[in-house]
C-alpha cells in the first residue's frame, strides 16, 4: 500500500531563517506531488505541484520554492521566512491530476 511521510510535524522558526520541509511517498511510482498551505479557518491553498522529477509548477508567487530531486521526494524551501509564512503545510500525492489526493499529516509552522 502507499504511504506518505511528512516531517517535521511542528516547527518554530525565527523571521529571516531558512526553511526545508520534506515529503516522501512510498509504494507508488511517478506520482503527482503537491504542496498546500492551510491558514486557520481558510481553505487549502495550492503552492506547488509536480508531475515528474525536476518539474515544478508554482501557483502563487511568494518567497517559497519547491524541488523534486527524486521521483517520490518533494521539498519545500525558503531562504528567508516571513511572518506571513506561518501556517499548516500539507504535502499530497495522486496518481493523476484528476484522481483523489492523499495527504500527509502536515507541518505546523510558526514564525516568531
Amino acid at each position, binding site marked *: 500500500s502507499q504511504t506518505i511521510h*511528512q516531517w517535521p510535524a511542528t516547527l518554530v522558526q525565527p523571521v529571516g531563517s531558512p526553511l526545508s520541509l520534506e515529503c516522501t511517498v512510498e509504494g507508488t511510482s511517478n506520482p503527482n506531488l503537491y504542496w498546500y498551505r492551510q491558514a486557520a479557518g481558510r*481553505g487549502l491553498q495550492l503552492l506547488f505541484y509536480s508531475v515528474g522529477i525536476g518539474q515544478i509548477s508554482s501557483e502563487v508567487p511568494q518567497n517559497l520554492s519547491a524541488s523534486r530531486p527524486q521521483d517520490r521526494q518533494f521539498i519545500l524551501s525558503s531562504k528567508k521566512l516571513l511572518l506571513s509564512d506561518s501556517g499548516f503545510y*500539507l504535502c499530497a500525492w495522486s496518481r493523476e491530476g*484528476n484522481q483523489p*489526493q492523499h495527504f500527509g*499529516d502536515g507541518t505546523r509552522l510558526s514564525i516568531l
Partner: protein
Amino acid sequence: SQKIEQNSEALNIQEGKTATLTCNYTNYSPAYLQWYRQDPGRGPVFLLLIRENEKEKRKERLKVTFDTTLKQSLFHITASQPADSATYLCALGGSGGSYIPTFGRGTSLIVHP
C-alpha cells in the same frame, strides 16, 4: 471569478440523524467533485469522488449528489455518530483545463451523543 462555497457555520446534529452538507460553486464547470474529511491537526482524507455525468454516489453510510444545473453537491452521512465529527471539504476539478482540484474552506460537523 471562480468560487466554492461551503457553510462556514458548524452543523450540529444529534447522533443517529442524517447530516447533510452543501457545496455550491459559481463560474465553474467541473468535470468532477471530491469530498474529504479533515480532523484537527491532520491532513484531509479522501472520501468520495463523483464525476459530472454521475448524479449520485454511495459508500457505506455516505452519499454524494452532484447537480450541475444547480451547481451544487450535497454530502449526506446517514445514522451519524460522534466519530463522524470533523471538517468536511469539497474540491472541484477539471474546469478550464485545470485537472488539479480547488478546495472549499470546509464545514465543521459536530455530532452530539
